[in-house]
């Protein structure tokens, strides 16, 4: 990507601002990526891109700004993401539209195209997925199509990068030329009505940027914005009766009382005509497509859900089993690294800051990179194969019982990776109530950052064979808890009618290794970056808070006790006591001690209480806090110096379970909370969320603790 600040973008004669418009899942984002080396998120389902993104790049002597807009099926404001696109196209300033269409399903895609053609903007059509069309033996005569609709059409493939050069050339050429005159024709009765309005506008020499023909069409289509602009014109009084009569004629002709429906039929007829002219389907395809064959297994009414659960289970099994292999090496590396580096530093405080603070904190977080990578691969596969929409389909009935929308599944699954994009992708839900409900539930889907905590505790208390199942159990129970919470909220706070569920099921696609690697790499780099900056800083802070103030009285009294004895074991015992006492006297220890009574009913000691509080900043910090606290504290005796060992030694199983329950339920992190507040639209929702999750977490952990105590 070109690293230019969008605001500093030079508006010169050679600058072309392109709006990329198309239906969902036609490859808009991927097309930008292949034109410009940008790294936009690509996935095989509707609703990947939910906000507009600008990408800048240079081509020969031109500089381009391309705006990737959320996909939209038609020119409506059905969902928030569609509103983003609609508003952009109507209100913003841009030079040209690239309308991306799916060559393998031209007729449906042209539905949007024909609406774009009445905008009086320069348009170039990118017939994307031409590689897939070739495989399906679909040929499109792009040249003939350009002539028929009066707009340049270029065959491209975002995957093979075929035709990308031609597309840019076509855009430049169109940009230099005068506005095109799209040839969009309607049935005779409609054309007559249009002609009459055009004649009227011509007669009054009505001035506007749009052509009179387009104004007429938009008026007949009941386009609100066109109405609004004409409403204040003097000609309106005379125009209105003509319009009403014209609309009646058209409705009569279409035997419908809905002018929009009538126009949709007009467009459909026009599109059918175009498709009949330019598309050739070689040898009528076999009875069932590959997608349908796969679907007959994966969304089978009986087998579908068990298959899905099996996939999930396998993912967590893999996460633990494969993730555990490099873990030992990483762990011993950081211990070695800490010791080696520590030996070279003479100042006690600095050594402790580096070894017990930064290395212990960051090392504890980096330990889980392998697990995170596997989880990300799983999510990337789910997103890019097309399976995501199938699961939404399978679970819709189930979700619906809990008051959630089937499409909520998409933000919820995204939530297993990270809550922030999940909050964003809730925009695909049309209804504000459904959206808010989903926003409240997303936190229950344990995000990638919580995985380290789970792996740490599952590994500390269970054998490797069981740990994978425990992970699966944690995730599933988190999700089920989320559903129960949804039901509760639906019955109380978010009462109301259900939103309709109409969702496209994309065809299955074999994701390219490159795409998967790319997605996973981007996310992993983000995790690493976070560990190197945010988590390292937090670890330093925690180290500071747990080392200061120095309690000299304590140190001296122990020092004299230690010097009085010469027995080695008593000495080390006293040292251990001193370390613990110092830690408890530190700022962090005081906070922990202060809040300990609050968490005592859940069986947490003050270190765990502190870790939960620092975890409000980010869940990785829970692990790094524990890492710092246990490496500073009394864990000096023989045996494992690893965090996992320290945990299994110092924490009871019941407390550990309660701890996991709290982690599962309470607020994801600071950054996610900010995004939540923005997406929910009001700060009050954040306080609701905070109260709701904290109380639920506390109550559930209390029960979990006591039940576990009873059994152990």
């Amino acid at each position, binding site marked *: 990507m070109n690293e230019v600040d969008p605001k500093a973008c030079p508006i010169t004669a050679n600058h072309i601002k392109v709006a990329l418009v198309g239906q969902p899942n036609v490859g808009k984002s991927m097309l930008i990526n292949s034109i410009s080396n940008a790294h936009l998120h690509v996935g095989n389902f509707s609703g990947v891109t939910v906000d507009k993104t600008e990408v800048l790049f240079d081509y020969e002597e031109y500089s381009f700004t391309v705006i990737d807009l959320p996909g939209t*099926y*038609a020119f*409506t404001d*059905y969902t928030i993401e569609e509103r983003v696109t609609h508003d952009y196209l109507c209100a913003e300033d841009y030079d040209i539209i690239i309308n991306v269409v799916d060559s*393998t*399903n031209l*007729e*449906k895609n042209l*539905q*949007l195209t024909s609406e774009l053609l009445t905008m009086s903007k320069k348009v170039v059509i990118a017939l994307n997925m031409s590689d897939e069309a070739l495989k399906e033996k679909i040929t499109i005569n792009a040249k003939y199509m350009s002539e028929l609709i009066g707009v340049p059409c270029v065959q491209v493939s975002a995957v093979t990068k075929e035709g990308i050069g031609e597309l840019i050339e076509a855009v430049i050429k169109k940009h230099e030329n005068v506005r095109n005159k799209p040839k969009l024709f309607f049935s005779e009765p409609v054309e007559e009505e249009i002609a009459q309005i055009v004649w009227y506008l011509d007669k009054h020499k009505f001035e506007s940027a749009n052509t009179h023909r387009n104004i007429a069409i938009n008026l007949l289509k009941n386009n609100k914005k066109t109405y609004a602009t004409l409403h204040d014109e003097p000609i309106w009084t005379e125009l209105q009766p003509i319009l009403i009569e014209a609309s009646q004629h058209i409705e009569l002709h279409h035997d*419908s009382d*809905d002018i*929009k*429906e009538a126009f*949709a*039929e007009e467009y*459909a007829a026009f599109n059918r005509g175009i498709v009949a002219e330019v598309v050739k389907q070689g040898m009528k395809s076999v009875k069932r497509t590959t*997608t*349908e064959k796969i*679907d*007959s297994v994966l*969304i*089978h*009414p*009986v087998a*579908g*859900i068990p298959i899905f659960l099996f996939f999930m289970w396998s993912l967590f099994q893999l996460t633990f089993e494969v993730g555990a292999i490099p873990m030992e090496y990483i762990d011993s590396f950081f211990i070695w690294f800490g010791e080696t580096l520590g030996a070279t530093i003479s100042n006690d405080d600095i050594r402790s800051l580096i070894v017990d603070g930064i290395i212990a904190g960051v090392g504890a977080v980096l330990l889980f990179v392998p697990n995170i990578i596997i989880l990300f691969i799983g999510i990337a596969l789910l997103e890019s194969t097309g399976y995501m*929409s199938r699961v*939404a*389909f*399978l679970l*819709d*009935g189930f979700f*619906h019982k809990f008051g959630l929308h*089937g499409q909520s599944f998409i933000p919820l699954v995204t939530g297993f990776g990270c809550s922030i994009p999940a909050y964003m992708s809730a925009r695909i839900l*049309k209804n504000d109530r459904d959206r808010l409900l989903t926003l409240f539930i997303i936190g229950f889907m344990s995000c990638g950052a919580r995985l380290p905590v789970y792996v740490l505790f599952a590994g500390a208390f269970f054998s490797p064979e069981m740990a994978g199942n425990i992970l699966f159990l944690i995730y599933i129970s988190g999700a089920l808890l989320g559903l129960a919470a949804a039901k509760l909220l639906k019955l109380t706070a978010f009462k109301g009618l*259900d939103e*309709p*569920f*109409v*969702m*496209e*099921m994309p*065809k299955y696609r074999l994701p390219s290794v490159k795409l998967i690697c790319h997605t996973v790499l981007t996310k992993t780099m983000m995790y690493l970056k976070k560990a190197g900056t945010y988590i390292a800083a937090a670890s330093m802070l925690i180290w500071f808070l747990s080392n200061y103030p120095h309690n000299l009285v304590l140190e001296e009294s122990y020092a004299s006790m230690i010097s009085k004895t010469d027995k080695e074991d008593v000495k080390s015992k006293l040292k251990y006591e001193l370390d613990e006492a110092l830690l408890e006297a530190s700022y962090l220890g005081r906070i922990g001690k202060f809040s300990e009574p609050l968490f005592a009913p859940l069986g947490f000691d003050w270190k765990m209480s502190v870790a939960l509080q620092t975890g409000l900043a980010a869940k990785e910090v829970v692990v790094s806090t524990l890492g710092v606290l246990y490496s500073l504290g009394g864990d000096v005796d023989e045996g494992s110096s690893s965090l996992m060992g320290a945990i299994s030694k110092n924490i009871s199983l019941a407390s550990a379970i309660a701890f996991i329950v709290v982690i599962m339920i309470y607020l994801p992190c600071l950054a996610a909370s900010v995004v939540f507040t923005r997406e929910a639209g009001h700060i009050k929702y954040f306080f609701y969320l905070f109260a709701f999750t904290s109380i639920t977490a506390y109550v559930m952990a209390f029960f979990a603790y006591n039940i576990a105590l009873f059994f152990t």
Partner: protein
Amino acid sequence: MKTLLDCNKTCVVKVIKLNTKGDLKQRLISFGIMKEAVLEVLEHAPGKSTIEIKVGKMRIALRAQEAELIEVQKI
């Protein structure tokens, strides 16, 4: 009156009328579900709560409540 919900798997039907208004109607139309369109029922989710249909080349999932609003005729 027969609706899409009454159709069994692999049933091929033609849309007669959309018994709905406003946003949902627009949505259905933008998915190509409009008068005269030919639909094929592909699959029912457990409990027939959600159905998968095919319109042209596109597969669409609808909930039973929505399917009930689509009046169809066997062809």
